[in-house]
């Protein structure tokens, strides 16, 4: 997605594949480690994994799209998770989410800002319903939100 893949990262991928590529049952660890290297799983990386492991590309693609932990598009430097669980929903999570989208300039199905500053996701429950409505930015939780609090929170990460 416009991101140039660094040659040194491909070297790291090849080292990883030399280490794990010929072992059975290692596809998911390979994908996880590859995602650590690149931040997401670019098409070229999946093609390389397919070539070196002998796993068909279609099957790898099937695995990648099955698990929500894998990403085919570049991710932002900050991950914003907006909780849509029952408690958050009741206390206005929809409004928080639309404010997040507006503030980040995301349209439609877009999840990541053009400058790769933020990726916005929804989650079913974060596990702190007492703070509803709640969002997480990276590892930090922000609760008892109203739409007006969104900008100030995001600014801390800009």
């Amino acid at each position, binding site marked *: 997605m416009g991101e140039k893949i660094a040659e040194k990262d491909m070297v790291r991928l090849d080292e990883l594949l030399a280490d794990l590529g010929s072992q059975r049952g290692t596809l998911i660890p390979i994908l996880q480690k590859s995602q650590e290297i690149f931040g997401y799983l670019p098409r070229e990386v999946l093609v390389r994994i397919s070539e070196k492991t002998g796993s*068909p*590309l*279609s*099957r790898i*693609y099937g695995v990648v799209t*099955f698990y929500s932990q894998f990403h085919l598009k570049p991710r932002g430097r900050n991950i914003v998770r907006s909780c849509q669980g029952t408690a958050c929903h009741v206390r206005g999570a929809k409004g928080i989410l639309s404010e997040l989208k507006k503030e980040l300039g995301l349209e439609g199905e877009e999840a990541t800002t053009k400058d790769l500053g933020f990726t916005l996701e929804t989650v079913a429950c974060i596990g702190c319903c007492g703070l509803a409505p709640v969002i997480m930015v990276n590892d930090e939780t922000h609760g008892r939100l109203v739409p007006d609090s969104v900008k100030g929170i995001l600014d801390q990460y800009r």
Partner: protein
Amino acid sequence: MSSVNETTVKVTIDGQEISVPRSYTILQAARLVGLNIPHLCYHPELAREGNCRVCLVEVEGGRSLVASCVYPVNEGMKVHTNSPIVRETRKTVVELMLANHPEDCLFCVKNQHCELQEIAADLGIRRVRFHGEKRVAEKDENNPSIVRDPQKCILCTRCVRACSERQGLDIFSSVNRGFNSIVEPAFGLGLDEVACSYCGQCTTVCPTAALTEKDDTQILWDALADPDKFVVVQTAPSVRIGLGEEFGMKSGGIVTGKMVAALRRLGFDRVFDTDFAADLTIMEEGHELLHRIKTGGVMPMMTSCSPGWINFVETVHPDMIPHLSTAKSPQGMFGATVKTYFAEKAGIDPAKIVSVSVMPCTAKKWEAKRPQLCDSGYRDVDIVITTREFARMIKQTGADFMNLSEEDFDNPMGVSSGAGQIFGATGGVMEAALRTAYEAYTGKTLENLDFIGVRGLAGIKEASVDMGDGVVLKVAVAHTLRNAEKLIEKIKAGTADYHFIEIMACPGGCLGGGGQPYPTDTEIRQARMDAIYNADAHMKYRKSHENPAIIELYDTWMGKPLGERAHHLLHTHFKAWEGRLK
């Protein structure tokens, strides 16, 4: 009841006790008591997945219903396939499938050939109980051979398994999950963007219309209706042995005469035979083989008549291209000859000729569009329809196919030998080539025409032919691309000492092609194969070089095999197919 045999177990299905092999599933065992448990994802020739849940049955003492296609039998098991809970559940499973399926059966290309439709009818589903969002996904119609319509997909994954297990190509996979699940190629690419061979085996196993041949019947009707066009047709060897199945005939029936009659009813100006062109292929390919042997050319030489195989080589193994015979396929040779030799002989402007072929094959549609195939100065083959499309056209005319009087092909391109006929079976091209190559090489008459060693449905066959003077010709035959891959590995490893290899992309050869009538399985392929060899045995001419129409063609017009004119019209070149994702 304690005499448990090692290899069989006693099970009771709907009150009927039966002994069955221990390795059987409930679904297999039920067949023996005359029960065909409805199923969709299960296919007798593919790995079992048990994902569609249509074949659910009740096992006494079990916690829940089980999928009979994967559930093994065991001693004393009591199964109910028709209890209220089974009937209710099975119906609900199918209703849920229908809830996410277009309701356009009347207009669907698979109408009356659809397994989902059949099961819905059998189960007596009269209304749609569940209404909700349906999958929205675009049709892939970007290639000349296969149409993929994900809206009709029921996620049974038969195509995933057929492509993987038969062809080793793994074009399809289950992608995403939950409501967003879809079966598609990597990255949702079109079949033209991935390493698809266009063989169409996926279309032969798809229970619905999610994968079908590209329908070219309307452009053919238009051509037939155009008074300024002279429409000629060729029919491949396997069409006449599959077509009858579309009209209720048992597999293995051969309907050559009725087929010719039906083609005339459709309005073709000339009805010719691809078998003639198959003889021509043998003349060129056989002499090319001898030429390579004499001059130390690239060995082993590999056949080039299966377009699925050619697509596979050009996409996946372009380094094997020098091994391919440069001879065009029979379809290609026919096209180039009909717009030159025939046009000249019959005094028809080749610009007015529409060259049509009826093929058992979806990949032939793509082959006809290859930029290389215009050596006549025109597009050598204009329209390709499969056996299935041909049957649909016959039905549209209202012709009572089974009661048509038999008719003969037109001359001169309707005369053929048994060697041309057996092109339809795996091993047939090899046998046909050996009949001619042997006599051309030795100058002696071949005593026994039947090369039994290259016949049959074994995946890979090997044979050697003593050509005299200490020369032994070593040959191999493979069908399906998975088996082809094995031979390629051998060649690359330097352990293959063959002179000549025949490859057909489809199981059984063209008789099991991707454009043949539904359904196809091993038994049906065997019946079709028997019909082919039976036809060969009863032919007046059984060697390509003895076909009088072929002799006349070379004597009066074409010159010699591999000669200048033949080189120009009957040979082609192949090149790496770049830019497809593998």
